[in-house]
């Protein structure tokens, strides 16, 4: 078992629209892999399959060597296997408190399912202090998410992933809509994951930000893997050129399809 996640020939379609057409993808332990590609290339579908949000139609997926049954796989099972996904602030409920947002789906409860609110709040305060670095900004465990800024929300989502000690953290556009200072925090977080011997998959349009912390890049276009690069072998500039090449061909093909 040398791979954390292994996907072989994965197909996925939504209502007849094919999103993935036989994807092969893998990530090992202690690796940071960037998934690059244009809008609609299938990046989000790929990570949603790994994180248990969506099932797949065909192909095989293994996590820690365990074969995944697409009909039974779920976010809960992914969490149990140590796969944690950060969907920016999209996975936070605005009107609910911070502590509820941290623990929802994985509440600290007694046997009857009643939540240990005191404990959850204490843990949240610890998370805010140790992981988020929320000091003196007026937010506390009882603050509703809607009172937080974009960067703070991202911080909550990321700290949630860190707190639950995932072996694989999946980040969906981690640096989008963040200030420079906040981007720095996110990159430090990715570096942290790497230093702790854990793995990370991210999707980003901004390869300039992400390039230095990555080990590998996988380029996806129209549901297929079209390129794989080691960071050691490719400079940021070369990588951008490569991506522009795919973007170009895909727009050209779109145009030719339109002509037909």
């Amino acid at each position, binding site marked *: 078992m040398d791979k954390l996640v292994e996907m072989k020939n994965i197909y996925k379609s939504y209502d007849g629209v094919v999103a993935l057409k036989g994807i092969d993808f893998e990530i090992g332990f202690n690796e940071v892999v960037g998934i690059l590609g244009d809008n609609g290339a299938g990046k989000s579908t790929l990570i949603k399959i790994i994180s248990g*949000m969506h099932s797949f139609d065909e192909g095989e997926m293994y996590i820690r060597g365990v074969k995944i049954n697409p009909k039974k796989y779920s976010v809960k099972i992914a969490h149990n296997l140590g796969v944690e996904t950060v969907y920016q602030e999209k996975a936070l409920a605005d009107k609910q408190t911070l502590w509820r947002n941290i623990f929802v789906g994985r509440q600290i409860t007694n046997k009857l399912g009643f*939540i240990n609110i005191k404990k959850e709040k204490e843990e949240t305060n610890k998370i805010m202090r140790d992981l988020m670095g929320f000091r003196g900004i007026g937010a506390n465990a009882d603050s509703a998410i809607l009172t937080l800024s974009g960067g703070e929300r991202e911080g909550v989502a990321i700290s949630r992933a860190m707190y639950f000690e995932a072996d694989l953290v999946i980040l969906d556009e981690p640096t989008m809509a963040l200030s420079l200072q906040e981007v720095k925090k996110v990159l430090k977080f990715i570096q942290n994951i790497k230093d702790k011997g854990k793995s990370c998959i991210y999707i980003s349009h901004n390869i300039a930000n992400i390039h230095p912390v990555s080990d590998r890049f996988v380029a996806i276009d129209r549901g297929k893997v079209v390129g794989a690069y080691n960071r050691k072998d490719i400079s940021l500039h070369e990588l951008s050129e490569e991506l522009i090449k795919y973007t170009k061909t895909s727009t050209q093909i779109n145009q030719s399809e339109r002509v037909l």
Partner: protein
Amino acid sequence: MDNLETNYKVKKSIQYKSQIALLIMTASIFGLFMITSPEVFLKGRIYQSFLSTVPIMGLMALGLTFVLAMGEIDLSFPSVMALSGFIFSITFKATNSVILALIFSILSGVIVGFINGTLVTSIGIPSIVATLGMQFLIRGFSNIISNGLAKTVTLDKTFSYKIFAEKLGVIPVQSIWFIGITIFLYFLLFRHRFGEHVLFIGDNREAARMMGVNVNSVKIMVFVLMGVMASFAGILSCYRMRTWWPTMGEGYIMMVMAAVFIGGTSMLGGVASIEGTFIGAFIIGSLEAGIVAAGLSGFWTQFVCGVLIIASVTIHTLAKRRK
């Protein structure tokens, strides 16, 4: 740290502001009733009467609070109340067993709730449409089977009559059930995993899904809860009147919704108040009696009810905005 503490306290006080406003509103309504018709409202009897009638509506209001908290709506509960009451009375007549009657009656509420939930989740019909259809369907169903005829049920000779219809001292038992269930549902909504999932679904369904909440099964369970509440209301009604009648529950839909909204539960989901619904039920449930006792025509009830809804929802909205 000081800063955090004070901030926290300020927020808490704002949070309770709308509850305090609600209590003041209740107190002033009853105060007004006492001034306009002291011979009625300064005596215990009217309150005893409220304590036996309000719970029937209040139980459904509690169920509806859960449904609204999750961002859905249920319009079928008045019919479920009638259906379950009917099933209760015919089972009791046929078997003479209270236990069987209770089981079948509650089961009918569970089944209707399950159907509602399945229509909304698996098939994907908006809840307002699905439950509107069910509302007609169930009413029609119980009318067809009962032939539109009322049924008397001689429950007053059973032991269960003490539990569901009589008084404990001076307190009607209906209100004890209501208080008990209110407390239980309060803890279920705000202290239990299940309730947290309900609130998250109402707030942001996708987020709930992303965090591993099984959205569909929670939704179905909430519709089932609503069905059970309506069933229980139907049963209590049968006990109270010792009769089942085919239009049972009609006229409740707007009153129950009014009680929930006055209490501060949002139509948009994610925000709910069980204690607010409890108070709202008593406000709505006592209006008509108070207005009639004051010598005004019953038409005033609707007018005053409208004023109260607008006023209380305005207060809740403003209190939230300040936050």
